[in-house]
Structures are given as C-alpha cells and as structure tokens.
C-alpha cells in the first residue's frame, strides 16, 4: 500500500470512528427520550411512587434530588472556593503544596461507592446523623470538593497578573485583592464550572445509597415546618433521590410498569442535566459579556 493510500484509509477510519461516537450519542439520547418523554406528565412528575400497583410517579424523588443539590451546594461552594483560593494564591510551591495537590487528585479519583461507605461509617453511624439528606449532602461534598477546588484554581489562574499586581501596588491587602479584584474576574468560569458540577451531583447515586438512604417517608407537602419528620424541608429525614430511584426500580422494581417508570425518570434526569449544561453555557456567556464589556 502506498503512503497516499494509507493516508486515505487512516483518515477514513478516524472519520468513521468519530461518526460512530456521534451515532452512539444520538442513539442513546434518542432511545431515552423516545422511550421516556411519552411517559412524562404533570401527574408523573408530582405524584408519589407506588410499590406494587402501576401508575406511580416520581414527585418526592424529584423534590429530594433538587433539595439535596441545594444543600450540597450550600456546603460545597464556600469550602471549595476557600480551598481553591488557598491552592492558587497562598500555597508556596514546594513539597507541601505538591502533597496537597496529590491529595486532591486522589480524592477526585476515589470511587463514589467508597465515599458512600465512608459516609455510612462516619457521618451516618459515628456522628449519628442517620440516613438523612444532611448525611447525603456531606457525602456529596466529599465527592464534589476536589472538582470545585480545581475549578476555582483554574479560574483564579486565568486572571491577568497585571490586575493583581496593580491592586497590590495600590496598597490593598492580599485578601482584599483576591476578594474584590480577582474573584469577580474569575467568577464566570467559576459559575460555569459550578453549574456543570451541579449536574453531576444531580445524577450521582452510588454515594447516596448508604448515606441519604433508599426510602422516603410519606411527605406532607403542606407542612413547611423544617423540624417536622413529615415535612419535605426537614434536612434530617431519609430521602431517596431520582437517580437512586432509577437504580432501585431497575434492580428490584415490583410495579408492573417499572420499565416505563425507569424510562420516564431517566428522561427527566437527562433533560435536567441538559438544562444544567445549557444554563452553564448561557450564564457563562452572559457573565463574560458583563465583566469584559464586549458587545
């Protein structure tokens, strides 16, 4: 085979493989949406699931997922921002910094089930929070923190050095410089990254099996007292999220329409992740425009 033919064959193979990936993706999305969207209705989104009968919905699960996401973000964002700022601004290059970097890397590659088991042992049993939304949020924090740190670090590194130096030269303290000059410039990247990581948290299930639990108590959506055990707002009640629900009905579903519920719930999950993706792009662009004054 001459060099020219080899070149053509190789190019064709590479293009085919790229096409195969697009086809896989289209098939995957098409399958989930085609199977699931027909099943989504207002009733499906709001009603409670049935154990043995057909016709159950995903209302409490959907609410739990969103509530858990908010709780996780409330804990993760301040911690992740702080740690990321430390890594990018305060740590001095050397053995200690390298070691912390290694730790962040290891933490980000821990299997989520191991994080879930750690949560079961330490948060659920030793700290005594039990199977609860709060335990789940803490486990997801462990899972999400390295990502948040990396996002913040990258965003801070993208700020032009001149901006920082100008502010320091004016006599502002380092923290003031970071807080009032660098952070606003880094914000579009941080927000985009945070929304993307929120999408990941939304779909996470393995770390929640043993922390947030696999069941929901009967919720009374008229009861907004956060201390009552039947209130949806109580963070110390067990909660099954949408992703955990999909896993459960696929592994041990008893309802006769379990495949349809799984399909509908998967479609909801995918659509939510898609919305998160689009939102991240949109807000990122909006913020970029606002802060850089480009038209």
């Amino acid at each position: 085979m001459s060099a020219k033919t080899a070149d053509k064959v190789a190019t064709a193979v590479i293009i085919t493989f790229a096409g195969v990936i697009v086809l896989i993706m289209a098939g995957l999305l098409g399958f989930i949406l085609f199977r699931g969207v027909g099943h989504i209705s207002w009733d499906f989104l709001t009603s409670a699931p049935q154990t043995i009968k057909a016709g159950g919905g995903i209302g409490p699960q959907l609410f739990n997922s969103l509530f858990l996401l908010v709780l996780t973000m409330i804990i993760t964002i301040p911690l992740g921002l702080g740690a990321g700022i430390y890594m990018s601004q305060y740590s001095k290059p050397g053995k200690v910094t390298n070691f912390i970097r290694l730790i962040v890397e290891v933490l980000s590659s821990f299997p989520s089930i191991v994080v879930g088991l750690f949560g079961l042992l330490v948060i659920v049993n030793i700290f005594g929070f039990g199977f609860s939304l709060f335990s789940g949020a803490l486990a997801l924090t462990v899972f999400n923190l390295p990502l948040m740190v990396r996002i913040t670090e990258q965003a801070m590194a993208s700020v032009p050095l001149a901006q920082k130096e100008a502010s320091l030269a004016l006599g502002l303290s380092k923290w003031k410089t970071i807080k009032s000059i660098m952070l606003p410039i880094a914000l579009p990247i941080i927000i985009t990254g945070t929304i993307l990581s929120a999408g990941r948290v939304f779909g996470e299930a393995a770390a929640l099996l043993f922390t947030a639990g696999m069941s929901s108590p009967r919720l009374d959506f008229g009861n907004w007292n956060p201390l009552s055990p039947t209130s949806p707002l109580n963070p110390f009640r067990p909660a099954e999220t949408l992703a955990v629900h999909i896993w459960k009905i696929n592994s041990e579903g008893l309802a006769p329409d379990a495949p349809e519920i799984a399909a509908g719930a998967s479609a909801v999950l995918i659509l939510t992740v898609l919305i998160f993706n689009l939102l991240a792009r949109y807000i990122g662009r909006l913020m970029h425009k606002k802060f850089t004054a480009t038209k």
Partner: protein
Amino acid sequence: MAQSGGKKKVQPHIIEEWTGKIYTSLCITFLIVTIFSMVFFVASKGLSSFFVNGISFGEIFGGTQWKPDGEPALFGALPFIIGSFSTSILAALIAAPLGICAALFMVEIMPKYGKKYLQPVIELLAGIPSVVYGFVGLSVIVPFYRDIFPGQGLGIVAGATVLSIMILPTITSIATDALSALPPGLKEGSYALGATRWQTLYRTVLPTTMPALMTGVVLGMARAFGEALAVQMVIGNAPHIPTSLFESTSTLTSVITLSMGNTVMGSIQNNVLWTLALILMAMTFIFVFTVRWLERRAKR
C-alpha cells in the same frame, strides 16, 4: 478594632489579611482531614477481617468460593477481583481507540466540525448519570447480546460495553489536550520532509504524545474500576469466576452495593465487604501513581 488593653491598634488591613489566610487555610485543612480520615477508617475496617476475624490473606485474595452464609463460611474474593479487572481492562481496550481517534479528528483532521459537533457530544456523554447508562445497558445492550450470543446477555462484555461509553469522554478530553499542546514545529518538520498526514501522525505525533494518551486511558480505567451502579445492573451478579465473557459474574463494586445493606455492622461478612472497599481504595492509589509516573514521562 482595638487590641484589648494594648497601646497599639491593629491595622484593619492586617485583620483583613488574617481573615483571608485563616479562612482559606481552614478550608484546605478540612480537605486534608477528610482524606486522611477516609483512608484511616476504610483501612481500619478493611483490615479487621484479617486481624480481628482471623481470615487469612490467602483465603480472600486466592479463594474462589464466596459463601458468606455457608457452613463453614467462605470468603474468596478472587471472582470479584477477576470480574473488576476483566471488565475495566476490556472497557479501556474498546474505548481507547475510539477516544484517541475522536481526539485526532478534533485536533488534526477536521478541527472545525470537531469543535462544532463532536465536542458537545463528548461533553454530553460525560454528563449523563451512571444509572441512566445502566438502564440503557439493561434495556438495549443486554437483550441485544442475549439474542446473538449464547447465555443471558448479562456479563463481562455487557459491563465493558456500558463502561466503555462512560469512560470515552475521559480518554477523549485528555487525548485532545495532549494533541493540542504539541509544538507545531514537529508536524511542520515532518510535512516538510514530504510525509503524508497519516505518516506524520503515526510516526511522530502519536509516539511523542503516547505517555499523555496513556494517562487518559489509565484514568478511564480507574473510573471503570470504581463505577458501581451501572455495572451492577448489567453484570448479573453471580459470585463465581465466569467461563465465558457472556456469563453472569460480579465485580468488587457490585458485590459491595448489593450486600452492604444486608449485613450487620461489625459482623464477619460486613468486615469482608470493607476489605473489598479497601482493595478498591488501594487500586485507586495505584492508578493515581501510575498516572503521575506517566505524566513525568510525558514532560520529559
């Protein structure tokens, strides 16, 4: 703010400086404490099956029988170790060529189409939750294999197929970064000598970026090794070493997922499950150090 009883006032900007320093240091300390306590707790629970319950290393790592309720109870974890390794290696073997070709397409062949179409597709693949992959695997891939191959369709191949799609984004994005970071002089030199594009890619670009490409493959394998729910849904969960790729088997993660809730904290069976978690954690360390070693080679 005045110092109590002192003559000198502490400057406001110094207080401000210290708030920032203390706040960020506390955050990073939290991170460090978390990981150390994780290693400590998982290791202390995982080692207790050896030191408290007196099960030998040989039985867990070499035993082929998993009968936790049997008389006598047998805790051979070899089938799960084999299951985990075979699915993740096979997944990496499927995903590596696809991912590297996708990266070549995006960087070298058609950057315009790559940025516009392939990149968003890859990002979406990365965002799909693992239970959805499991659900699709269970309702599409498993019936497909059941129809064309002997057996139930559940097994190593089904698991590896699902995992390979899940780890494709990891491999692709790292390969894309590696290829884009290549100095242009290298390629231009090769073209100037009259080499075709494929000769350039195959003889200079791929060998130069090989350690970086391997980094992506190892990271993908690490992800596949630790993935729990999607694998659990399609692997079949039979506790024995399979004789064919289409026979039901188990992985370390799937057996932990299914059994942990049914055992009592502190019982022998529970401790052995923690040992499996410890193996998962040790493998994570091995993967991370392999990646670090590859990165050092890539820099040279």
